[in-house]
């Protein structure tokens, strides 16, 4: 009886054991780091101070003495005391607690060791993906990881002097081939989706370049990109472009599989009816997809808005400055989605109809 249960859930058991091992390893991986890591053993608040900003907001400052044991490197085992200034808002400071592991350099804290939390959350995500999506879910994770690697190679090549926009175009083709083949296997559906992605991507790019050159980035506020020494205009278009590809692929594969389904169910379906059905599907996708992008992009500005607002800036001020870039991202993404609908239905219908003849 027990062995039967064991056999049935063997994957599950292996997964759980592996996760615990990983978490255990990451928790004790201090020796991997060259920076010194300290485990906090006690925190003493020496003094609480209050400072008032220009708008009458009183901010509390806590002057702390943080004591801890160094856990790696040549000073391993030694205790150290660091003075730290914590604030109530923690805009740029962190609230440390006993048993936290922090990086230290000389007499300063250099940030929390966060890898353990990233790993735990990632394991939760994989577990959920496996529970619900089974192998298909894990395959989608694989395509995500592979795409991420391609992305990093692209950035690497950019630093070797290759034009970023050109790289992004090549990358986008690779992304779509890879993820669509992994998701759907090699068949007509995927091929028609890939062709649709390529056509849409190029159309979007041409449209974007036309808009950019006619308006010359008027009304776009580049502060967010300003810390790079690269001119922000060089980064913006590739960035917009990469942000949209995922959504374009999503739309293209949905439409091409729906059309293949329709043709399979009824081999004599007319082009007129196919057009009508694909338009119906497109409508449904359009509304939900644009909402996904809307919230993924637009709410990113919340922290900076709060900071600006509490410094006396108005909502209008925010919308016309920091917000513009996020809005552009969303708009370009949505244009990509909506544009892909007719393009991919046209291409899918052409490809499937030719095959049927």
């Amino acid at each position, binding site marked *: 009886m027990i062995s039967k249960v064991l056999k049935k859930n063997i994957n599950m058991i292996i997964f759980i054991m592996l996760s615990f091992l990983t978490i255990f390893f990451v928790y004790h991986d201090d020796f991997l780091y060259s920076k010194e890591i300290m485990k906090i053993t006690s925190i003493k608040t020496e003094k609480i101070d209050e400072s008032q900003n220009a708008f009458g907001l009183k901010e509390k400052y806590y002057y702390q003495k943080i004591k801890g044991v160094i856990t790696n490197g040549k000073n391993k085992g030694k205790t150290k005391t660091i003075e730290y200034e914590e604030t109530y808002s923690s805009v740029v400071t962190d609230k440390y607690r006993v048993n936290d592991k922090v990086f230290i350099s000389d007499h300063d804290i250099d940030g929390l060791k966060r890898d353990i939390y990233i790993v735990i959350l990632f394991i*939760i995500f994989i577990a959920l993906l496996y529970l619900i*999506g089974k192998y298909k879910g894990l395959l989608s994770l694989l395509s995500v990881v592979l795409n991420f690697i391609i992305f990093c190679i692209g950035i690497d090549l950019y630093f070797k002097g290759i034009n970023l926009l050109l790289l992004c175009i090549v990358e986008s083709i690779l992304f779509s081939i890879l993820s669509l083949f992994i*998701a759907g296997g090699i068949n007509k559906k995927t091929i028609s989706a890939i062709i649709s992605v390529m056509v849409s991507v190029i159309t979007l790019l041409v449209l974007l370049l036309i808009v950019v050159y006619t308006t010359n980035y*008027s009304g776009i506020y580049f502060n967010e990109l300003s810390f790079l*020494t690269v001119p922000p205009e060089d980064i913006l278009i590739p960035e917009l472009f990469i942000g949209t590809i995922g959504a374009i692929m999503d739309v293209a594969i949905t439409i091409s599989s729906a059309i293949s389904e329709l043709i399979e169910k009824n081999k004599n379906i007319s082009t007129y009816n196919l057009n009508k059905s694909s338009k119906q599907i497109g*409508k449904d996708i359009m509304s*939900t997809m644009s909402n996904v992008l809307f919230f993924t992009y637009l709410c990113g500005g919340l922290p900076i808005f709060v900071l600006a607002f509490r410094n006396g800036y108005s909502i209008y001020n925010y919308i016309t400055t920091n917000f513009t870039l996020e*809005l552009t991202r969303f708009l370009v993404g949505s244009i990509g989605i909506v544009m892909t609908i007719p393009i991919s239905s046209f291409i899918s219908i052409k490809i499937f109809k030719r095959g049927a003849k």
Partner: protein
Amino acid sequence: MNKILMLILFILMIYIDRKRGVKLFFSLLLNFIILMIIFYMTAIGFNPIICSLLGCFIISLIILYFVNGKNIKTKSSLISICIVLILLVFLIFGMTYLSRIAGFGYESYEEINMFSYDVKIDFTEIAISLILISLIGATVDASIAVSSALYEVYENNKHLSFKELYQSGINIGRDILCTNTNTLLFAFLGDFMTLVIWFYKGHYSFLDVINNKTFCAEFIRILFSAIGCVMVIPITSYVTSKSILKLGKEKTIFDIKD
């Protein structure tokens, strides 16, 4: 430039479907206004978590009822989204509290150095509310896709049992999962590109990156969007199957009485 992009989007939406396009465009505007209200309420000092939870509820109401109409599909989606939000809020709270991703990392100092940091508002709560709002779009999307597909399945095969319906909901969800994770990943990568270039310039090692505050904040945010998306699939299948079958039963009783 944004005005022209907006115009292009509007024209394209109308081209796809006149009535629905206009409706969608206005619902986006409405969502925008609500988003700004959430931002504003948070900034003047209301509790950010409560603000964002309420905001998420209203936003899903708009997306579901205004754009897709009020019916059994949207009703069960709404219930499922509420369940997911309630379940996730604790996980998000714990994660944000532990990983200290509140506030800004070194990479954003240039962007914020013109402001005073003495703002007397706890940025941990702001970080939580940020994660909550960003996951709502993807979650609603997955939920409505499952519930409407499930409804179609039921309409075509009325004799299906609860177990069969639930299973087909999960199957539909699996197909959505694959594409949705891609959309989210690339939306994230687009945002992330500046950061990656920054990391390359500063010669960050892999270990530096995974402990970096800005990276962790973004990564956790996108991971929670994906988790919301995955979690909503079984919950929506469950709730929709239950409510469809319940409605079906009521209908048959009604038919017999007639």
